[in-house]
């Protein structure tokens, strides 16, 4: 009797190890999209250039590389621009259906800014269930302590409810187009677009199969910082930048996993570390001399 029960238990565990295990690999459907608040309702906040292009470029680049590399993956996209990028839409549960959620707009430690007048989304008001989130906004993940010397500027854990990792910034980030004279007798105009970061990120992560953190930090370095001395760094926010990734870590299927290493083609499918996880961690890199308040 006892022997039979042991056999039964073993069988259940054996079957469960296949059925209950979190699957790794490609999704059958990949949905990408997000929110770009470039202009604000009645100009209650000032324009943040580059948002519309950032969202368009990210979506089109991801879709292009997925079609090239993984043609079996179905694609869908959703974009909310300016007046559609409301707080209500951002908090709506259907945004959780996006595998990759993008946001571009003004921000500061622990919050982002939506289209509608005086509407913010704080870290305690949105729990991401998406696989990945990218917040192109200033200071949301700012490091260090507030002037009281006790309170951290940012608290990242409240944003998490299954999201594998969140990409963002611990400093000011810029958007728009830099231009300079170049070419023969300086008669031409060369331009550096902030949305080239989104393009390079998609290429590195999906086409080149880099880890998500590697793709992000090098894309930021190349496109938002190392545009060289060719362009005048005449603004404090052009002198440095801090890209950052935040994630919960622990064991999945009995194996330790830190989501900063996640690659597109063998990503865990579904939310992770909603309840059982060992802790929250972040990685960042400081390029140049970043600014925080302009």
């Amino acid at each position, binding site marked *: 009797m006892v022997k039979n029960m042991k056999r039964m238990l073993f069988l259940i565990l054996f079957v469960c190890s296949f059925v209950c295990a979190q699957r790794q690999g490609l999704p059958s459907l990949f949905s990408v999209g997000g929110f770009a608040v470039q202009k*604000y*309702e*009645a*100009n*209650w*906040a*000032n*324009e*943040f*250039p*580059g948002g519309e292009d950032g969202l368009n470029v990210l979506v089109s680049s991801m879709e292009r590389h997925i079609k090239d590399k993984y043609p079996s993956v179905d694609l869908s996209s959703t974009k909310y621009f300016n007046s559609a990028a409301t707080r209500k839409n951002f908090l709506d549960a259907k945004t959780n259906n996006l595998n990759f959620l993008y946001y*571009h*707009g*003004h*921000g*500061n430690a622990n*919050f982002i*800014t939506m289209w509608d*007048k*005086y509407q*913010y989304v704080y870290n305690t008001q949105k729990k991401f269930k998406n696989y990945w989130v990218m917040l*192109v*906004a*200033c*200071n949301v993940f700012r490091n260090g302590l507030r*002037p009281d010397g006790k309170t951290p500027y940012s608290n990242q854990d409240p944003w998490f409810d299954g999201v594998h990792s969140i990409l963002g*910034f611990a400093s*000011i*980030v*810029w*958007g*728009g*187009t*830099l*231009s300079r004279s170049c070419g023969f007798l300086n008669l031409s105009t060369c331009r550096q677009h*902030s949305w080239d970061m989104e393009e390079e990120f998609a290429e590195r992560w999906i086409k080149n199969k880099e880890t998500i953190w590697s793709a992000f930090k090098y894309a930021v370095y190349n496109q938002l910082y190392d545009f060289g001395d060719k362009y005048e760094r005449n*603004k*404090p*926010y*052009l002198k440095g930048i801090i890209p950052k990734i935040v994630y919960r870590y622990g064991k999945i299927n009995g194996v330790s996993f830190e989501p900063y290493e996640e690659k597109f083609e063998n990503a865990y499918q579904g939310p992770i570390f909603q309840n059982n996880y060992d802790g929250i961690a972040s990685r960042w890199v400081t390029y140049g001399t970043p*600014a925080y*308040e*302009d």
Partner: protein
Amino acid sequence: MKIDCLNRKIIFLFIAAVYGLVLAACSLKDEGFLKIKSVSECVSDKKSLADFGSDAVKLYTDDRGSRWIEFSAMWYGREPVNEIKYSYSGDTLKVELYKKMTVAPGFNCPVWVKAEVHGNLDAKYLYVNAETFKL
């Protein structure tokens, strides 16, 4: 001959008058109805202009007789303001801080603006960054 000469004088006077008007208009534009004296750094821990309430605007005359207006507005932190645009809508003075920018930081915060008032401020309300304040 006399008529020709008179015509020339009239033409000259007309041109002079037009030139004078253009010059006057330009100098008025340069002078500005509101002339920025200072823009503060970011006001800490204030997230929107609504937080300022009725304290958002001050209008006063100093000891020297100069009239000043101080108000809060959303701006890109320490980025200098190049221009202050204004227009009237009924009894509301609409004000906009302006700078032509092809790149900008993803950061906005309330700042204090101090501007000198030149001429008559014929308004009861100030509208700035989608908020209306009583003067």
